[in-house]
């Protein structure tokens, strides 16, 4: 019996468990890409329109979130508009699936039972990687077929598909390593997400600092983009240069990560992480002995991790703010476009309004994660003995809701302050910029907080579906924010996302009505969720 015995059986088990989840991801992402490609070809029918697109898309804020402008053909526009956000989702699909079939099985004790059967030591990890690689291969084929059917060139269509699939495989490798390092699936997912965040940030900086290519409308990304697997996807330039060798980079990195993961499995026991457990206190500190204290204890790690991420992102985007002025000097057409938006703000205000609006959606990732902790406590069974003490259900919920709300506000203030600090250093006005941008970031808080209400509501009303619905709602917000305008979706559809309703402060005035309405909606939904939770059975 080799150390891989049983791999095929375990892979079939993994596919059986994921028979709904992975197809939803694959067809969902493929569908978004196809819809965007269709609307791009509808929206940019003339050369002039496509040239105008290239001008507006080549600004630091847009490039930080979308990627470099690769050309004025429909394929390149589709690539710029969709690749980054889809790559992030493909990476999340892959990391979560790998952790689900490796570390989570160890944590719950399933791996012990499986490992006692005729199953080799490397079989579980191999089965997880095969499953996830299969999902990514299916996505690559689907994307290639759909884009080609949309009239894009075969080379470009398959290029996007393969790049997305390989990015997924790379992050499957990242998750495989993370699952060896961390002793918990929560920790492994966190580590993998941090890796994804770093990859996103590196290419955001590189693409944002990109220079206009000589004589053309395309952008040459700066060196940092070449440090990120997501950045490599853009550098494939599937519809213009088609640098197939870039795919080799992705394959090699994936291979290295997987090899590292296998090497690490040899150095640890089943169920253990790489870091040993330390002893804890024999008695509890006073602060822990209340529902709020317990909630803080359980949530503080997430708050800390997200805080670091927000400061880094804020400082980075603040530093990039300088680029916008320089770019406008060199690109009068873009300056004209900015003026046409008809806002009172300066170009830098426009930039920060856009960046902070998009980052508020990212911060909502924390909000959703923090609130879903309640559902995790319930389904893992730790809530049962807790609610058998003299703690009322609303009091328990309010502890977590308070931490999630305060944490969200803190993250936005840190984001704005970070941006204000670095941009303030550049323009020589640190206190002024910190106050102004922290305030601007805070003006976005009603978005995540309204979403928070929806999450509490589904926890109360639909506990069995709460996790999928809550993350699904966030995905819808991200997609509406990223591609909603491009798809020319009708306003009522865009209005589904709470983030649509908030003006891009500091480029626009703070609007009181949407802020108050969103906060009221969040509050009402929260109250509904708490009331529903009070009236329902505990659901394991």
């Amino acid at each position: 019996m080799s150390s891989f015995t049983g791999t095929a059986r375990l892979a079939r088990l993994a596919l059986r468990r994921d028979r709904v989840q992975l197809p939803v991801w694959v067809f969902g992402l493929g569908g978004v890409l196809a819809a965007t490609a269709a609307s791009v070809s509808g929206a940019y029918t003339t050369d002039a329109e496509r040239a105008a697109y290239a001008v507006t898309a080549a600004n630091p804020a847009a490039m930080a979130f979308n990627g470099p402008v690769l050309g004025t053909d429909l394929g390149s526009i589709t690539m710029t508009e969709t690749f980054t956000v889809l790559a992030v989702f493909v990476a999340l699909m892959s990391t979560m699936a790998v952790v689900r079939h490796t570390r989570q099985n160890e944590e719950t004790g399933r791996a012990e039972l499986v490992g006692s059967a005729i199953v080799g030591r490397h079989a579980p990890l191999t089965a997880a990687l095969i499953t996830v690689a299969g999902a990514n291969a299916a996505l690559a084929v689907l994307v290639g077929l759909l884009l080609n059917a949309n009239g894009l060139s075969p080379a470009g269509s398959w290029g996007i598909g393969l790049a997305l699939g390989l990015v997924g495989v790379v992050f499957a490798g990242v998750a495989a390593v993370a699952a060896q390092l961390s002793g918990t699936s929560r920790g492994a997912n966190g580590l993998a997400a941090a890796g994804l965040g770093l990859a996103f940030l590196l290419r955001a900086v590189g693409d944002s600092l990109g220079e206009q290519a000589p004589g053309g409308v395309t952008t040459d990304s700066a060196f940092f983009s070449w440090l990120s697997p997501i950045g490599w996807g853009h550098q494939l330039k599937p519809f213009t240069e088609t640098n197939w060798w870039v795919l080799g980079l992705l394959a090699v990195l994936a291979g290295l990560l997987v090899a590292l993961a296998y090497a690490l499995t040899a150095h640890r026991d089943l169920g253990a992480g790489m870091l040993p457990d330390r002893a804890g206190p024999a008695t509890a500190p006073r602060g822990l002995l209340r529902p709020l204290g317990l909630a803080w204890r359980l949530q503080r790690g997430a708050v800390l991790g997200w805080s670091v991420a927000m400061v880094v992102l804020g400082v980075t985007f603040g530093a990039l703010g300088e680029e916008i002025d320089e770019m406008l000097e060199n690109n009068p057409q873009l300056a004209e476009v900015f003026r046409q938006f008809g806002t009172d703000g300066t170009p830098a205000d426009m930039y920060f309004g856009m960046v902070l609006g998009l980052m508020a959606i990212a911060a909502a990732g924390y909000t959703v994660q923090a609130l879903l902790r309640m559902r995790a406590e319930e389904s893992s069974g730790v809530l049962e003995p807790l609610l058998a003490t003299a703690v009322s259900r609303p009091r328990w919920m309010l502890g977590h809701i308070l931490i999630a709300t305060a944490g969200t506000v803190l993250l936005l203030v840190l984001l704005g302050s970070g941006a204000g600090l670095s941009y303030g250093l550049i323009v020589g006005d640190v206190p002024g910029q910190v106050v102004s941008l922290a305030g601007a970031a805070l003006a976005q808080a009603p978005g995540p907080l309204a979403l928070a209400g929806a999450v509490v509501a589904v926890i109360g009303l639909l506990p069995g579906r709460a996790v999928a619905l809550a993350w699904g709602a966030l995905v819808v917000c991200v997609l509406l924010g990223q591609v909603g305008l491009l798809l020319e979706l009708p306003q009522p559809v865009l209005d589904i996302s709470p983030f649509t309703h908030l003006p891009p402060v500091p480029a626009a005035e703070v609007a009181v009505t949407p802020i108050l309405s969103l906060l009221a909606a969040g509050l009402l939904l929260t109250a509904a969720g708490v009331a529903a939770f009070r009236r329902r059975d505990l659901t394991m």
Partner: protein
Amino acid sequence: MTAAISVTKLVKTFGPTRALDELDLSVRTGEVHGFLGPNGAGKSTTIRVLLGLLRRDSGEVSVLGADPWRDAVSLHRRLAYVPGDVNLWPNLSGGEAIDLFGALRGGLDPGRRAELVERFELDPTKKCRAYSKGNRQKVALVAAFASDVELYVLDEPTAGLDPLMDSVFRSYVQEAREAGRTVLLSSHILGEVEALCDRISIIREGRIVESGTLGELRHLTRTTVSVRTERPVTGLDGLPGVHDVRNGDDTTRFEIEPGRFDAVLRHLAGFGVLDLTSTPPSLEELFLRFYGGDAPAEAEAK
């Protein structure tokens, strides 16, 4: 005696499954009440309804005179619960978890906590994720017995404990009874039930099939009789209440329902009885009878 727990016609359904089907249960104040039944019979569901964690569909439930759903918080100050499957926060130490449960229940006695930690040989500095099943149960037991409450609800609390710890557990249950506390103890360990419980209730398929002291339950089941006679015994099969007649050389064995001895003894006397032993059902037989497909004798007699 007043009832610490009183349940009448309790119904709880999960979708199409009728988990509790008009269940009646009565636990007297100050007694240790065994709550027994096969896996999946509805023990934990009943306990969760008693704690207000599940909402009943219909029926009357009163715990310490309160409605567990409506008055959950005030009721929970007066009881301590040890779940069958103790899940704890992996990143808290055992000591922190004990203090947390104690504080949320309204405070615990530090001296008693220290004594319990020592007697259960628990290392309170370990993180909960490092504990075995038995050690997680010890955490819940220490937190429960260190609280000054009127009612202990214990759902298979010793399933993961070694025999030494089991005896420590038994001494604390005895102590609680002597102090006038009420204990509802769900258990599969028959020796524990026999040693601790004043009365027991047996649940099967969501209904209580029998309730009473062990002695009373014994009287409801068949006794095994072995009789040695001068001449081979015939005609036993035809007598009411006699089952499983097996004839040996000079020894005949059979089972007999309670209350049927008189006619059988008269019949046997005609064959020259040399020797007769009557064995009441062992605990195992008793429970197999009540748990399994065999209906208890009383039900047969009806």
